[in-house]
């Protein structure tokens, strides 16, 4: 099915791009001390914001804001480069894999196109600048994606730029075993599985719960925190990705040493409690401090990411189905987050999201 191409608005493109892309300084000010080392990357702040993913509103379909996104592809012609004749984007946005043309915005250096794409997905793409395929020079996310039609000559670089739309739950950072370790660690930080919470939840009178309420019964399931962190470390906090990987590998090794008879995913809760306490004390027997010098820093980081994942807007991939917010409302009345928040999460009759 062909992609819906929507009007591309000059004002919107400038609003989304000028702060990040317009500049004369050639330095890599934004490579996080070398964490982002690919060509060109590090010149632009927040390269993960490109292409720009926004919510989509349909006045006749309340569900549309969950199912669709507006995505604006922006390509800025470098100051010293001649203007190309054509710029287009190719990838798996479009079932037919046809290039989607970008248009030059007024007489500016920006070329852009806005399309409507399904949410909850990852997309691989390349720009075709005068028919030559190039990675998005701004987006810091790219990966091997050889399974889609590659316009480049056989054997050349098979990396594609990629992005994801809202509510995406496909992993881009972590392997399954890493996700499971993280889930156990974050469950230990969050309140939902604590003894006190279980008693609270078991004693809730289901008959008094209406609408979205009552969903907290499912809090034993993942709150999506791990998915939130997975996206965070591929995007805004890409600079923390390598550290996470090193720490999770160490934790995996340590848990196997401490209990050779069970998989780390299956070891009793007490082992995670002990590990948490060791990390908090920055005194972790068996930790390879040469590989990662400050395990308590990893724990602090994980604590912040866990809180953000549990209680930020669900579109970022955590706070699944708004369960995190529901828990707060039910456990700590009269806190009512719903009245200011858009439907379907909240009940605001004015604000649409």
């Amino acid at each position: 099915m062909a992609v819906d191409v929507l009007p591309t608005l000059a004002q919107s493109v400038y609003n989304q791009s000028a702060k990040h892309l317009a500049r004369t300084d050639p330095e890599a000010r934004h490579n996080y001390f070398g964490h982002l080392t690919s060509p060109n990357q590090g010149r632009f702040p927040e390269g993960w914001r490109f292409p720009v993913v926004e919510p989509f509103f349909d006045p006749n379909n309340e569900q549309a804001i969950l199912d669709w996104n507006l995505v604006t592809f922006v390509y800025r012609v470098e100051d010293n480069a001649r203007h190309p004749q054509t710029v287009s984007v190719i990838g798996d946005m479009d079932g037919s894999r046809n290039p989607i043309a970008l248009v030059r915005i007024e007489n500016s250096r920006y070329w852009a196109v806005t399309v409507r794409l399904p949410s909850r997905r990852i997309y691989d793409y390349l720009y075709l600048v005068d028919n030559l395929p190039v990675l998005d020079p701004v987006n810091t996310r790219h990966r091997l994606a050889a399974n889609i039609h590659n316009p480049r000559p056989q054997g050349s670089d098979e990396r594609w730029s990629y992005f994801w739309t809202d509510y995406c739950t496909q992993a881009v950072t972590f392997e399954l075993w890493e996700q499971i370790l993280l889930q156990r660690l974050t469950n230990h930080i969050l309140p939902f599985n604590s003894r006190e919470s279980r008693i609270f939840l078991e004693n809730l009178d289901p008959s008094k719960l209406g609408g979205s309420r009552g969903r907290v019964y499912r809090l034993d399931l993942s709150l999506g925190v791990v998915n939130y962190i997975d996206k965070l470390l591929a995007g805004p906090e890409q600079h923390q990705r390598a550290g996470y990987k090193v720490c999770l590998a160490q934790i995996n090794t340590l848990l196997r040493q401490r209990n050779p008879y069970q998989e780390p995913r299956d070891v009793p809760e007490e082992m995670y409690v002990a590990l948490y306490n060791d990390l908090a004390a920055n005194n972790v027997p068996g930790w390879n401090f040469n590989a990662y010098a400050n395990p308590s820093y990893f724990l602090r980081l994980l604590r912040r990411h866990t809180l953000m994942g549990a209680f930020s807007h669900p579109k970022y991939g955590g706070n699944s189905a708004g369960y995190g917010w529901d828990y707060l409302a039910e456990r700590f009345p009269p806190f009512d987050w719903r009245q200011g928040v858009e439907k379907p999460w909240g009940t605001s009759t004015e604000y649409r999201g």
Partner: protein
Amino acid sequence: MEKFDAVIIGSGAGGAPIAYELVRAGKSVLVLEKGPLLRTQDESPTGLSDFKRDELFGYGTEKIIDVPGVANRGAPYFPSHVEPDLNDEPHIYAGLDEQNPIATTEGFTAQVVGGGTQLYGAVHLRFTREDFRLASFNQGRANLPANRFTDPDVSIIDWPFTYDDIEPYYLKVEELVGLNGTTQGQLKDFKGQNKYQTPLAPNPISAFAKAGMEAIGGTTYRTPLAVITEDHAPSGRTAGNPKTSYVNRYGDPMGYKSNTWVALLRPTLRDPALAPLLTLRCNCHVTHLSANGATVNQVHYRDPSGEEQIVEGKIVVVACSAIESVRLLMLSCEQDRANFGARFQYQQSGGLLGRYFLTHCFGGAEVALLGRRFDKSISLDSDFATDLTASPAFIQANNLWAGAAIYNNTSDQALPLSLGRTHGSTDLDSLWQGFMGDTSIIGDGFNAWMDRDLGTRLSVSFMGNQIPWFRNHIRLHSSTDKWGRNNAYIVKDWHPHDRVLMDIITEQCRRILELGIPAGQRSNIENGSVKDQGVRIANHILGGARFGPNAGVSVLDASCKAWNFDNLYVTDGSCMPTSGGANPTHTIEANAFRVADILKTRI
């Protein structure tokens, strides 16, 4: 070359009122704004606002400072979505010893059409009569410790006009911008007129603050807020429900919060008779001004692509918030030391550009109510205020040079991420650190933390006058921004008397909570001020190009025109010679309306 009657740099509190007035006087106006135009829901082509009720908009994900030569290189920061990237355009701060400068988020308001009025908490207090005449007020006073004012670097001057002169403009702001509040109980003279809309019901938690303010002898009033509670005819806005707690540091997707875009610029552009006279160019970064003799004849800027552009204005108004305005003028001096620089006595003995930088003495007290929980997510930024500590009697009795307003805060820590961010943190540069390090907040401990802090915390704050001190200044730093221009360097600390003032008013805030909440119903009261944190600016960015009676003591004349220039005006907070004992936006806007009346006669 394009020519306009007026080119205004900055679309916030200091610039937009002038655009509003000049266009209505038939003048052609260009407003250049560095930031984007973020639209409200009703004006957005997508049907959705560019602002969101989303906690990650107020403070975003982690970024890392990587500015060469600063002491906090490698430190994290968590900017809002409309603050500049610190690695592209930092503010550099150091104390008076200039050791270990750091890059900081302090001192940026917002880079967006509407400027700081988009993200502010919208507290819109008038200054008191004495705030405009503190030199006269203190002259000959016997009860001030002498050493506090014999310091030759302290220079207190009266404003070049009185409260009575600016009063009609305060009224104008209250009507045109759209404020709610009550006049009764305020120390300020409203001269029998009241343009406030009716305040909404206060959050019930604020009753304790009100009781405390009254218990210490204060009269209370509803904190004036730039939020419409009724349909607002001057700006064509329809009222709705603004009580969401996504207030301070959030742009309002619905446009109920009155900022200079929805209240002044947008209505002008929507009026077919006026729109042709107003040109708004956003995402345009002014790099410098150039002058021919005493006339600023060119404004140089980078357009959204980054291309260099030049425009001309019969007059040029600089209003891009005090630090950036001073920086822009200094960068212009650097381009042309012989003329532009000489006219500002730039880097010469006696030069005052950048001097007497001010913010506010601020602080307060905070407590958690025991056994009671309120929904602070249904609130605006503040409910009650008192002028007790701004009264001449209080100032005299406490041997202070000036006063302060006190008001309670309601929208702070109302939402879960804000609780985590601010747990144990004292400023924007230490966000999240407390929560990250408090490893006892886990499982049942997490519940206990929320039980203690979610919807239970009540705080009262003060905003007090800061001593104008020559040593507190802005200049250019050797590091450069993404355009290769030198960044702003802020060197400041608190004068000893500032610390005295902060201690005394902090104690009043503590007493408000002590007396307002029965013992046994509250946790230990935490109180304090910024007296040991020289970096703190409260986003109240004032001084650095003050106005006054002559070029010997000031940078601008009474009309905000730079001495030695014919057509260069500076109308943001940088013109203020004293910071006033209240949040400054109302006064910046009123002064800009005052200057606009003068400019109408000069173009």
